């Protein structure tokens, strides 16, 4: 269907694509995997006419084509769905889909014809999208299907999907994969960019592995496995499971009793939840995303308005349910937030300034007068975190925005671990993080637990939460619906609790 031959692309000093060759067979689902920055998105953006390659050629259905813009790509039957959707929130599905290809004559817009066509395509692939719905009222999964429709409406025969599952819940991922399989049955070709190995194995026919701008492997999915793919991606053996010693459990540090968290509209996001986290253990919380995990962690961290909380949060026998985030930090609670861009980092600030968030008003960061920041102390702390947690590039003057996701996450974890917390709240610690960094982060969390810290871990990755946690609670619609021993419970058992409650 499409073939990239000897494509090279340079951004300044960075060689993003180094003579890469990718061949996608028609009617297949082709996965392109690699760590962040391996050059997979760049390659696909070149195929879509978003970037121009410095050298090399693109063949579509056996013929060499010049793809100078997305417009050319669309004309050749190539569609692309970006990681961040390009939709106008306040317009309807139909209006979004026809945007740029409006039917009708120069003056009048023929929306009816468009709606009929959208319905037809939507039914053909069982997308279940209502053309009259307004985008902002749709879930993320539905919005993604609108993006698919947009490409299909323009008669795309090849769809390029950039990290399509990053924004989806596990259930939505299953639905989404079913759609992809239907598309393959109908003769479409799909290229899916990802770094989640389980998904590659579940959906693809062929895999191209990239590392450092080069193609380092081409395999049939049937003939490979996760360990081999991980080794190709990272360039060395990777430990996919966490090795940890027996937990030496101490006293409960945190005791949550009858905690209820409401939203502004009065709906209960957490409903009468009770549990303990003890020193020296990792308590995992598994659940389909959006079942109250975010609210639970934010309530424990002091980031939910006090009048939305009822029940008790006992930390070392003191009820802190109505205390602010600052006091909780001073008591020894650290927090690795699920959304590092929204919560965890000041992206415009440099690494040094980011490394003091939360302790910026305390000694030794402020000097004797208690007002002025001690720039030596700030730098010292930043350098300690950068060295201790292998943050690259190791330059405290860089803005946090300049770092890759994995390095941003290492900076946050370093900052939070640095305060020697008694309780660590961790949410999605490895989301969007390279495999190599995941291994590192897991080891750090286990080290902290072995040092006697109580760790509460929320993760959407079942594999992560089962391999790290010493005890595992399952959350469903804001309630704890079960506790299992992660060492013996099967994924099926946990999955059943996650989706159906009891």
């Amino acid at each position, binding site marked *: 269907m499409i073939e990239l031959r000897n494509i090279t692309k340079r951004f300044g000093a960075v060689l993003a694509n180094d003579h890469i060759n990718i061949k996608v067979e028609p009617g297949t689902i082709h996965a392109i995997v690699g760590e962040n920055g391996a050059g997979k998105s760049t390659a696909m953006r070149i195929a879509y006419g978003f970037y121009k390659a410095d050298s090399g050629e693109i063949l579509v259905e056996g013929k060499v084509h010049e793809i100078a813009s997305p417009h050319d790509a669309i004309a050749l039957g190539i569609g692309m769905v970006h990681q*961040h*959707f*390009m*939709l106008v929130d306040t317009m309807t599905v139909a209006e979004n889909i026809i945007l740029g290809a409006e039917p009708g004559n120069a003056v009048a817009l023929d929306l009816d014809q468009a709606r009929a066509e959208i319905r037809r395509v939507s039914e053909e692939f069982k997308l279940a999208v209502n053309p009259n719905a307004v985008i902002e009222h749709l879930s993320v999964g539905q919005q993604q299907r609108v993006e698919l429709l947009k490409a299909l409406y323009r008669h795309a025969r090849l769809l390029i999907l950039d990290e399509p599952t990053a924004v989806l819940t596990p259930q939505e991922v299953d639905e989404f994969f079913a759609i992809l399989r239907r598309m393959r049955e109908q003769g479409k070709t799909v290229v899916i960019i990802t770094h989640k190995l389980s998904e590659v194995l579940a959906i693809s026919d062929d895999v191209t592995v990239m590392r450092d701008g080069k193609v380092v492997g081409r395999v049939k999915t049937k003939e490979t496995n996760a360990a081999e793919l991980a080794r190709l991606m990272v360039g060395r053996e990777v430990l996919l499971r966490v090795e940890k010693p027996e937990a030496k459990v101490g006293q409960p540090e945190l005791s949550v009793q009858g905690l209820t968290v409401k939203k502004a509209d009065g709906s209960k996001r957490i409903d009468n939840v009770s549990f303990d986290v003890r020193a020296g253990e990792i308590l995992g919380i598994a659940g389909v995303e959006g079942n109250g995990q975010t609210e639970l962690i934010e309530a424990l*961290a002091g*980031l939910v308005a006090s009048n939305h909380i009822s029940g008790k949060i006992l930390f070392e026998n003191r009820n802190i349910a109505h205390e*602010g*985030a*600052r006091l909780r*930090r001073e008591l020894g609670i650290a*927090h690795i*937030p699920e959304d590092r861009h*929204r*919560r*965890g*980092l*000041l*992206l*415009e*600030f440099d690494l040094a*300034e980011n490394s*003091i*968030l*939360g302790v*910026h*008003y305390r000694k030794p*960061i*402020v000097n004797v007068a208690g*007002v*002025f*920041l001690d720039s030596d102390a700030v730098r010292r702390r930043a350098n300690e975190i950068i060295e201790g947690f292998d943050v690259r590039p190791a330059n405290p003057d860089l803005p946090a925005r300049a770092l890759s996701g994995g390095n941003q996450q290492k900076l946050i974890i370093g900052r939070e671990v640095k305060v020697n917390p008694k309780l660590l709240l961790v949410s999605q610690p490895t989301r969007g993080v390279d495999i190599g960094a995941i291994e590192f982060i897991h080891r750090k969390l286990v080290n902290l637990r072995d040092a006697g810290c109580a760790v509460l871990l929320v993760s959407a990755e079942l594999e992560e939460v089962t391999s790290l946690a010493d005890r595992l609670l399952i959350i469903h619609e804001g309630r704890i619906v079960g506790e299992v021993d992660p060492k013996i419970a099967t994924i099926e058992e946990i999955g059943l609790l996650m989706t159906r409650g009891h």
Partner: protein
Amino acid sequence: MSLFRELLFPLIAVLAAFVVGGILILLVGDNPLHAYALLFGSAFSWPVGVGYTLFYATPLIFTGLAVALAFRCGLLNIGAEGQLYVGSFAAAWVGIEFGGVFIRNGAGEIVNSPIANLPIALLLPLCFIAAISVGAIWGGIPGVLKAKFGSHEVINTIMLNFIAVALCSYFTQYHYKIPGDPIMQTAEIGSNANIMRLGKFIPSMPSFIPLNASFLLALLCCLLVYLFLWRTKWGYELRATGTNPSAAEYGGVSVRKQIIIAMTISGALAGMVGINEVLGYRHRYYDGFSDNYGFTGIAVALLGRNHPVGVILAALLFAVLQRGGIPVDAFTEHVTKDIVQVLQGTIILFVAAEAFFRGPFSRWGLLKRSKV
């Protein structure tokens, strides 16, 4: 490198504006080089030109600093105009009531007796405090409204501008004007509340030039704001709130408190225009004196990249234009001093258009940010 980048875009914007202005001057039939020579020649002539340029720059430094500081906390203070009016009136009120000024009507009867006649060592600081604190309150009100009720500071500061202007006019007209005076202005403040003109210290500067010690105060404020924002824990919290309130909250910072603090300090800085205007220049409150200093302050902050040093440079540039516009008007055939407005407007346009200069993919960057 980063300093160079920070300076590069404002510089390009200014140069581009002068090119556009030059084309306009050419179109109306004058020689742009001649006009610009007049403009800069006049603004930089010693001592009169320089004196006036620095005098014009003074209120713009205060308002530019006010807008910049609020902006560092993610707030748009459109209300510097109102804040500088109430600050100025407050300074005049103290200068009259505590400066031993009797206001008499045409028949010589006293219509307003002062509260006290304080010595300079008490009166001058009191006038300062009045201008600063009343400006701070006027800025703090929309801060509190935003922090408590989430009402938008842009709307509230605009509304408070109208209230401020009307309130000051009312008190001038009915309480502190000399009856029969055709000009809308208060009586003169006590002489103990006057600030020295710099002509007194610089031998070659004639004393009619209104440049006074407030200019030095403005520079001092720039230094203090710089130290506050980048060297103290409070400034760290304020800037953190400005770039990412969610992350600031996560780091134990009270976002509401920061909003109130930022708006209050911003108002105080705007109120200090009154020190220059009332104590240093006219020695009375003159109704409607502000030549849109509050709004030009937004442009100054924008051009100065919300940095104290940038604010000084931008305020000086705008002052040069203001001062230099007069001879351009007088000594060219067709160009009027409106060319100054054209230049100011074009500079802002180019500065605001910066996003479009930043590479072809900035478009996608913007899209991304508005989405997720």
